[in-house]
């Protein structure tokens, strides 16, 4: 295929974000109130309602929302597709476990270290691909994901055994990191994860609203736009990749201390592909999309399992979702649902005003 250097048309995975017709930021106070209410519910209202199985499920969802957030930023903001996000979470878990057995660093430090090491590895993976097109970046991440998965399958997660890999056969299949003292119970740990997730979302929002976000918007518009605005595209693409990898690493660190610990079986190859699907469906343009993605990835399967519905149907649904999003609904559900709700609201409003006029 010819690479036309004169092309200035956008080449992102999903078309540019749908722009609100009024062109200004939407009602801020209302949104903030809704978000605050949701967070309050998650922190205080939800835990008492759940049994230990469901507590595990929603904790997993909170953690995976960070992984989805990183991928969503990459795809939606910069137009880069990575197929190794889930594997990087596994790397994060590995690093956190290794450090927890080797040192006595406090929990937050362990998780941060996991984040930074994973960010470094992610940057290494993305670095060579920057000279190649977006398709090759996706493929190199796929290859890296496969390679890392195989290595992980062979060495397994550290469980306190000796040697660099830290795994001993006597230790058992899954390993678990000790939790921070203020989050020992499952419910407390869930709250801890939600708080960390909120911090990640704030980190993402900070990036999007400031210089990096503007630079990414230029890159996504086209390489030529970015270069002619003076943007160092290599730097900002790497930054995005490092940020997404950092989030995956932090998520992995948190996974290491979740109930049941981590085992290699938790990170199969298909999950990276499925994550891509749910992130696309959730909507890569809005940060809310990551929440929707986490719901689709972790909560919906558990619900279906409870109701006796086969989860394979979900896989089929995700496949259809990918095709649909790429063809018609670039903003995904996070964009579509508010629009549909707004439309519904307007229709209801019209019904009422018609009634008034008739009266």
């Amino acid at each position, binding site marked *: 295929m010819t*690479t036309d250097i004169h092309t200035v048309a956008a080449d992102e995975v999903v078309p540019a974000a749908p722009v609100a017709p009024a062109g200004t930021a939407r009602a801020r106070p209302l949104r903030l109130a809704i978000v605050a209410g949701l967070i309050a519910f998650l922190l205080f209202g939800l835990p008492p309602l759940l049994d230990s199985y469901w507590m595990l499920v929603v904790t997993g969802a909170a953690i995976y929302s960070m992984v989805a957030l990183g991928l969503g930023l990459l795809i939606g903001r910069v137009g880069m597709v990575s197929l190794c996000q889930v594997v990087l979470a596994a790397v994060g878990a590995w690093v956190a476990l290794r450090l927890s057995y080797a040192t006595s660093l406090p929990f937050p430090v362990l998780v941060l270290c996991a984040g930074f090491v994973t960010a470094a590895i992610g940057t290494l993976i993305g670095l060579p691909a920057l000279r190649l097109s*977006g*398709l*090759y970046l996706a493929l190199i991440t796929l290859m890296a994901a496969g*390679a890392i998965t195989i290595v992980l399958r062979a*060495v397994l997660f550290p469980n306190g055994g000796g040697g660099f890999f830290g795994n001993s056969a006597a230790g058992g299949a899954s390993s678990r990191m000790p939790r921070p003292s203020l989050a020992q119970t499952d419910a407390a740990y869930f709250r801890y994860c939600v708080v960390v997730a909120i911090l990640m979302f704030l980190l993402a929002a900070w990036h999007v609203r400031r210089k990096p976000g503007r630079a990414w918007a230029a890159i996504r518009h086209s*390489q030529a736009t970015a270069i002619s605005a003076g943007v160092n595209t290599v730097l900002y693409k790497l930054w995005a990749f490092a940020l997404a990898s950092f989030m995956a690493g932090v998520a992995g660190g948190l996974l290491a201390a979740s109930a049941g610990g981590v085992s290699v079986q938790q990170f199969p190859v298909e999950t990276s592909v499925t994550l891509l699907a749910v992130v696309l469906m959730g909507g890569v343009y809005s940060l809310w999309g990551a929440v929707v993605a986490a719901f689709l990835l972790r909560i919906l399967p558990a619900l279906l399992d409870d109701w006796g519905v086969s989860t394979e*149907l979900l896989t089929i649904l995700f496949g259809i979702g990918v095709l649909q999003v790429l063809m018609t609904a670039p903003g995904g559900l996070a964009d579509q649902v508010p629009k549909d709700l707004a439309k519904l609201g307007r229709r209801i409003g019209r019904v009422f005003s018609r009634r008034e006029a008739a009266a």
Partner: protein
Amino acid sequence: MPGLDDLKPFLVLGLALGGVFAMNGVGLVVLYRATGVLNLAYGAIATTGALISWSLLGGVNQWIAYAACVAFGGAVTLAYGLVFGPPFAARDPLVKATATIGLLLILLGVMLWVWPPSTTRTYILPTRLHYYEIADVRVNWTQILGMIFPVVVTAGTAVFLRVTKVGTAMRALADDREITAMLGVPVRRVEAAAWLGSGIVCGISGVLLGDLVGLDIVGVTFLIIPALAAALIGRLHSLWVTLAAGFVIGIVQSCLTAFTRVHIGARPLADYRTITPFVLAIVALLFFARRRPLVRT
């Protein structure tokens, strides 16, 4: 370190398996060159077809069962190309490849639903029952087919692309779709031919894989990886390099099975053998990145 005698059986299996990787790689490259679509659902299509054959065996004549796999490969690939080719035609190759992930997930879900992984399924191609003894190694006809088919397919495709009208049209399409269309070439029909051809190759590989490695759904679906690695080494362009790369990947990966006494960490080298395609592909990609200036678009 294993000696040549220890390696020989793995060499044969590696050639056969590598042949299937190579064949799939060539199928991927031809489709990519003609349509810009890197069909990541390739492995899933092959596996679904093989499972269909497995289900039909016992009920119908075995040749019909195997033909069904080939027909399925061709039909599904063609159907996808006809429905989802045009809407994505003008978009970036990355988008096109991502769309095929949708197909991959649909097929994966269908397979896991219709053929739950709780039982192991295998079939034995009639060709496995005939074998030769070459240099103390038993080589059966399935494996020989795995070695010969790719070469035939590659040579045939190369000739086809160069000599026939449709083939030349495909090469023109790869270069510039719009100009080709303006020249009066029936673009949609040529693309359909590329989809169909690619799908039939996929179906054939499905039949062979079912015999060579068995029908582990997830495993075979992601057997696209070695094929992809081979295609990448061929820079998504050269058929012969892809063919050679496929064989090399198969041989290296298979021969590593014999390295049970060389260890990395606590595990024998053999446990790491499936890393072969990934490592080779990464090395190839790094090599290509080195020679290119920063791509502008």
